[in-house]
C-alpha cells in the first residue's frame, strides 16, 4: 500500500515537472542574437540609415520621450504625462526623474531639449529632421518639465514623435560632447542595454543596463536578458540557415517561399509583423530621360502591378499606389493606371524615343530586388526600354540616391523597398518633401507638398486623410515614383524566445521584456 502511494506521488511529480518548466514566467539570463538584412550603419539615431538592426540597436540603447504601443496609441516612456495648450501649439511634457544615462549622467529636461534640438539643427543635416520641422522652440521649464512650442497646430506631432524612426531618442549630451564626430560609433543613451562593442561591419554587442528604470514581472529591474547581439546577413537563405543552425536566435525576415517550412519546424516560430514592404521605383526627374513626364508615364503604363505583387508576395501582398498600409485610417485605396502598352509606346515616341532607349536600373543587391529588377526589365522591354541592371551594395545605392536636390546625376531608375508600418502617415512625407534626401526621385511638386503640410495643420483625421489622398493623386499623376504594392514582412525566431517586442512603425525588435524559456 505504502509503495503504491509512493509510486502515485512520484508519478504525479513526474507529470507535474514539465508543466512547471513550461510556465512562462520570465527567466533571467541568456543572450539573444538577432540577424538583420542590413548591417548597423550608426549608433547615432539622428545620423542613420535606419535599417531594422539600426532601429533595434536604438530600442536597446535609448529611450524615447513617448512611444506607440502595438495598437498604435501614444503611451508614456520617459515622459510620464503631457498636456496640450488650447491653441494646440504648446505641449508640456513631465519627464521621469529616475532615469540615468549609461555614462552616469541623469536624463533631465536639458537632455531632452538637447536631443531634439540636435535633430533640428540645420548644421547636423539629420535625415530625420523633417519629422520635427513643425517644432518652433523647445523650452526647459525645470529639471523635469519640457515645453515644446509648435509653429502651428499639428495632428501628427505626438505620433510622429512617438514612432518616427530616429526622431526622438534621447542621447546623452555629455557623450555627444565627448565623442564628437565619433558619436555614431559610441551611442550612449538610457535604454535597457548598453554598448559593449561595435564597429561598422561587425556584430554589435550590448549588455544589460544594470541601472534600468523599468520593472519586470518579478519586481526586479528589466531587462531579463543579459545581453543582445546584432549582426547582418544579406542573403535570405543564408540567414535562415544560420537561424536553423543556432548561430542566431531571431531573424528579421524570411523569404515568403520559406514560411511554410518554418511553420512546420517545431524548433522555430514565425513572427507575424505589423509591417509590410512596399516595392517601388524612383525615376530621377532631374536628369534625362526621366525629366520628361511622358517617359515616366510610359513606364507607369508598361508595368503590370497585379502580376508583380502577386509574384513577389506569393498571394500575400496587395497592390496600392502608395506606401500606406491597409487597415489604417489614412489608407487610400489608390491604384496606378491599368497597363496600356500602346499608349506607353505612343508616349515614348512623342518624347522622341520611338527607337527605344537604354536605362540604367540600380537596385540594392537583395534577392527580391533582383527579382523585381528582372520583372521590370522584361515588362519595360515590351515598350522598347532596355534596361542595364546594376546590383549595388546598400551603401553604394544610397550614395547615389540618398542625396539632396539635383545632386543625383548617376541614377536613372532606382528600385527600392520602403518599410510600411502603422505609424503616422506623416512619416512618408519625406517622399514629397522638395529637396529632401529621401525624396529619391528629386520630385518637386508645390501642390502635393502643400497638401502634405495642410494635413499636418489639422487635427481632424478625415480631413488629414483627404489631404493625403490629394497628395497621392498628384504623385500618381506626376509619376516621380511608381509604387507597386505592399507585401507583408514575416520574421522568424527560435521557438523558445518569448515576448519579442516589435516597434509600431517598423517592426524593429524591442528586447526589453524578452526572455528565453528553457
Amino acid at each position, binding site marked *: 500500500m505504502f509503495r503504491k502511494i509512493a509510486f502515485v506521488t512520484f508519478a504525479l511529480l513526474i507529470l507535474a515537472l514539465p508543466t512547471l518548466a513550461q510556465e512562462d514566467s520570465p527567466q533571467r539570463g541568456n543572450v539573444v542574437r538577432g540577424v538583420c538584412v542590413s548591417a548597423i550603419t550608426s549608433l547615432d539615431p539622428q545620423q542613420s540609415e535606419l535599417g531594422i538592426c539600426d532601429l533595434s540597436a536604438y530600442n536597446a540603447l535609448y529611450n524615447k520621450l513617448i512611444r506607440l504601443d502595438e495598437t498604435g496609441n501614444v503611451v508614456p516612456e520617459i515622459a510620464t504625462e503631457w498636456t496640450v495648450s488650447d491653441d494646440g501649439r504648446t505641449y508640456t511634457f513631465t519627464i521621469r526623474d529616475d532615469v540615468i544615462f549609461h555614462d552616469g549622467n541623469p536624463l533631465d529636461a536639458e537632455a531632452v531639449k538637447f536631443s531634439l534640438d540636435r535633430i533640428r539643427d540645420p548644421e547636423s543635416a539629420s535625415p530625420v529632421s523633417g519629422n520635427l520641422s513643425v517644432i518652433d522652440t523647445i523650452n526647459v521649464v525645470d529639471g523635469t518639465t519640457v515645453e515644446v512650442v509648435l509653429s502651428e497646430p499639428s495632428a501628427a506631432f505626438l505620433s510622429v514623435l512617438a514612432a518616427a524612426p530616429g526622431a526622438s531618442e534621447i542621447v546623452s549630451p555629455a557623450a555627444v560632447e565627448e565623442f564628437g564626430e565619433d558619436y555614431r560609433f559610441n551611442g550612449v543613451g538610457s535604454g535597457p542595454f548598453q554598448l559593449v562593442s561595435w564597429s561598422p561591419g561587425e556584430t554589435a554587442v550590448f549588455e544589460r543596463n544594470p541601472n534600468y528604470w523599468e520593472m519586470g514581472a518579478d519586481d526586479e529591474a528589466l531587462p531579463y536578458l543579459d545581453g543582445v547581439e546584432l549582426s547582418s546577413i544579406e*542573403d*535570405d*537563405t543564408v540567414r535562415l540557415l544560420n537561424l536553423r543552425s543556432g548561430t542566431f536566435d531571431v531573424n528579421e525576415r524570411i*523569404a515568403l*517561399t*520559406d514560411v*511554410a*517550412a518554418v511553420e512546420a519546424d517545431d524548433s522555430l516560430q514565425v513572427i507575424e509583423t505589423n509591417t509590410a514592404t512596399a516595392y517601388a521605383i524612383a525615376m530621377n526627374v532631374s536628369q534625362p530621360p526621366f525629366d520628361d513626364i511622358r517617359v515616366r508615364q510610359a513606364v507607369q503604363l508598361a508595368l*503590370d502591378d497585379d*502580376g*508583380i505583387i*502577386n*509574384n513577389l508576395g506569393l498571394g500575400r501582398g496587395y497592390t496600392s499606389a502608395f506606401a500606406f498600409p491597409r487597415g489604417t485610417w489614412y489608407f487610400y485605396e489608390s491604384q496606378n493606371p491599368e497597363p496600356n502598352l500602346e499608349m506607353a509606346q505612343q508616349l515614348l515616341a512623342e518624347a522622341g524615343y520611338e527607337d527605344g532607349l537604354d536605362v540604367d536600373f540600380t537596385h540594392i*543587391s537583395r*534577392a527580391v530586388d*533582383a*527579382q523585381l*529588377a*528582372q*520583372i521590370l*526589365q*522584361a*515588362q519595360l522591354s515590351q515598350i522598347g526600354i532596355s534596361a*542595364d*541592371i546594376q*546590383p549595388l551594395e546598400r551603401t553604394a545605392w544610397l550614395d547615389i540616391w540618398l542625396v539632396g536636390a539635383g545632386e543625383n546625376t548617376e541614377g536613372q531608375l532606382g528600385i527600392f523597398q520602403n518599410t510600411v508600418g502603422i505609424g503616422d502617415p506623416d512619416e512618408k512625407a519625406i517622399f514629397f518633401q522638395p529637396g529632401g534626401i529621401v525624396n529619391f526621385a528629386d520630385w518637386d511638386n508645390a501642390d502635393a507638398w502643400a497638401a502634405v503640410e495642410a494635413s499636418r495643420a489639422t487635427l481632424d483625421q478625415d480631413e488629414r486623410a483627404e489631404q493625403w489622398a490629394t497628395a497621392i493623386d498628384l504623385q500618381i499623376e506626376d509619376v516621380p515614383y511608381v509604387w507597386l504594392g505592399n507585401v507583408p514582412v514575416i520574421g522568424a525566431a527560435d521557438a523558445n524566445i518569448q515576448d519579442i517586442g516589435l516597434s509600431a512603425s517598423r517592426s524593429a525588435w524591442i528586447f526589453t521584456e524578452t526572455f528565453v524559456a528553457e
Partner: protein
Amino acid sequence: MVSLTPESDMASATPTLDTDPSQKIGSRSATLFWRIRHNPQMIIGIICISIFLIPALFAPWITRRGPAELDLGTTFAEPSTANYFGTDEMGRDLFSRIVYGGRVSLQVAGIAVGIGLGVGLSTGLVAGYFGGWVDNIIMRVMDALQAFPAILLAIVIAAVLGPGLTNTMIAIGIVSIPRFSRIMRGQVLQLKEEEFIEASRALGAGDVRLIIFHILPNGLAPIIVAAAVSSAAAILTEASLSFVGLGAKPPTPSWGGMLQTGYKFLEIAPWLSIYPGLAIAITTLGLNFLGDGLRDVLDPKLKGR
C-alpha cells in the same frame, strides 16, 4: 581453327579494325580517326559535351519560349511535358534557359580560351625561341599571374572591370594565359634542339619562318589538350563568377546565375538547382574527358602516363 588455305592467308594480310592501322600503311587522318574511335574517354567526353551543347546550337528551334520570357502566373511549376525542366520564380521556362545558357557557356569558353590561347601562344613562342632577358621578363609576368589562385584573380579582374559577359570573358581569358604560355615555351625549348629545325636553319630559314612553319605546328598537340581542359575551367569559372554576381547580367541566362537564384528555393523547387548544376557538371566533365582523350590520341607515347 587455323586452316592453311590460300583464302585465309589473304584474309590475315588485310588489316582488320582491331589492329592499329598506323603500324600498317594508312593516311594520317585515318590513323587519327581510328584512335579516336578506340578511345573510350574521348567518346564519353564527346557524348557528355553534346548533351547540352548540341541543343544550345539549335536553341531557337527546340525551345517553346524565350529564355527571358516571363509568365508571372505559373511560377515554380514542377518539371512536366509543358515545361520539361519546370519554371523558376518568375515563371520562366528552365529548359529554355538551360539550352540558351549553353550558348553563353559555349561563347565564354570559346572567347576566353581564345584570348588565353592567342596571348599565351605568342608570348610562349617568343620567350622560348629567343630566350635570355625576353624569356625572363615574360616568364616572371606569367609567374606573377599564376601566383594568384585562378578564381580569385578572375573575381578581382571581373570586379574591377564590372559585371557583364564581356568582362567575364576577358577575366577568364587573362587567367588562362600563363598555362598556354608555359606549355608553348616548354615545347619550343624542346623543339629548338631537334635536328629538323637545325636543318631548316641551315637551309636559310629565318626566325619567323622557323617559328610559324616548323616549331608551332609541331608543338601544338599539348596546346590542343590544354585548350580542351581550359574550356572546362572557363565554363566553371564563369559559373562561379555568375554565382557571386559578377558574371552575365540579367536577362542573359547563365548556368551559374541560374544556380545562384535557384539555391534560394532549394526546399520548394529543387529542380532550379539540379538542372543547371547537372549542366555545369556534365559539360565540364565531358571537356575534361575530351582533353584526356585528345592527349592519348595526339601523342600515343604519353598514354597511361
